């Protein structure tokens, strides 16, 4: 196949193509993002209404924030590969796209979805639970690093769950134990910020480090998943 010489290496071009394809089909169907938003709203209102103005400690607030984010991610991100199967495009994608391009393309797409969702959820949390934030950088840092880690792991487990029966419940079962280190750490960091305590910066190193290790391990293992 001949194509124009490009400024970027082939892999980056392919990653961009996968990302563009996913973004376009998402813009048309609006399925994933609307599911994410409505699911997050449902979780949030379930918590917020049942508490209705009661006082929550920063610890509980942080736990709720991350539980809402985790389950929204489980509701919305699992479709990354299932959608290809349902549309019948999986084989074409396998034939024409290098596995690493699919891997990074899907991950970037999921990261974008979850990071934008996390901003929305945080905004609603601040409104509903009357949270006053002193250190915005640390809060956004914890939120985004945690969301990035979650999206990376969820992309890998979605690729595995897509090949099995009972995908959606299996997806949650597979993701939870793997994401736990990041999940616990993100909750703890968020708690520290919400409590107005000084944040230990090494927390962020671990949040980012976990995401990086998951990204590399996933990249190595994805080839085996993709090319059967």
């Amino acid at each position, binding site marked *: 196949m001949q194509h124009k010489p490009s400024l970027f290496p082939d892999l980056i071009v392919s990653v961009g193509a996968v990302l563009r394809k996913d973004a376009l089909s998402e813009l048309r169907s609006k399925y994933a993002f609307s599911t994410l938003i409505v699911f997050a709203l449902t979780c949030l209102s379930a918590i917020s209404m049942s508490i209705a103005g009661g006082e929550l400690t920063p610890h509980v607030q942080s736990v709720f924030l991350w539980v809402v984010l985790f389950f929204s991610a489980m509701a919305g991100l699992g479709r990354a590969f299932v959608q290809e199967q349902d549309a019948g495009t999986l084989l074409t994608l396998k034939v024409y796209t290098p596995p690493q391009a699919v891997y990074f393309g899907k991950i970037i797409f999921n990261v974008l979805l979850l990071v934008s969702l996390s901003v929305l959820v945080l905004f609603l949390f601040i409104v509903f639970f009357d949270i006053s934030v002193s250190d915005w950088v640390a809060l956004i840092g914890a939120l985004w690093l945690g969301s990035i880690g979650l999206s990376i792991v969820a992309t890998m487990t979605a690729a595995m769950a897509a090949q099995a029966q009972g995908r959606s419940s299996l997806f949650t079962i597979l993701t939870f134990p793997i994401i736990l280190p990041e999940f616990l*750490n993100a909750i703890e960091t968020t708690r520290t910020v919400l409590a107005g305590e000084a944040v230990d910066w090494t927390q962020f190193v671990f949040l980012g480090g976990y995401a990086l290790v998951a990204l590399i391990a996933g990249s190595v293992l994805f080839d085996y998943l993709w090319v059967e």
Partner: protein
Amino acid sequence: MSGILSKRDKLFGIVIGVWLLGTAAAVFALPPLEWFGYKGRILFFHIPMAWIAVLTFLMGAWWSFAYLRSKRLEQFHLSSLSNKVGLVFSLLATGSGAIYAKLTWGAFWNWDVRQTTIFILLLIYTAYIVLGYSIEDEEKRGLISSVYSLFAFVTVPFLIFIIPRIPSLKSTLHPQRFSMDAKMGLVLTAALLGITAFYIWILRYGAARQRVKTAEQAQLIQKDIESIGLGAEGLESAGLDAEANQNGEETV
């Protein structure tokens, strides 16, 4: 299942059984441990269980890795068996630990560091087993299960760094060190050796059973092929050995 094991493996099994019974008897012959008291006897069960859980999961991950490299199904069978055995031993370690915790500190569960870690291991390996059940094709199951267990194997050690940073999970009730006299050390070593030999025996038994199963399947396939009147060579050369069974059924 008497025909599965070779004479040597049967003998090996009997020796291990006697050895483990002897060790159990020795545990009860020991005087109570220094500050653990009589209930300290549970340690001679708990420590070997915890050790074998670690060993089985390490070996399971190793065979998963080997399977991804070689795609030889018997390596996946070994890793799968090893992980399942590991799950059983982890449950025993968790259970015995919880009983000891109840007797000593008054609660079965208190999110001690090691309780947290083993809890996560239990979650991972139950997810691993559920994943295996949900995929029918054996090669696909091997592939995806192996990828999952290796992915977990790489990311989960982060817990070692994360847990001490979380105040509600920080404390450990596990004794960091305790003194044992020579006799106790001997019994504990005997228990560890016995349980490790038992694990090896389980692996040998599992491998032998798998061989019988594979042979039976091959026979069935052969029968199918014969019944539809095709030579085995023709099918094999067409690379249809795996699908031959299904195709045969459809045609018949």
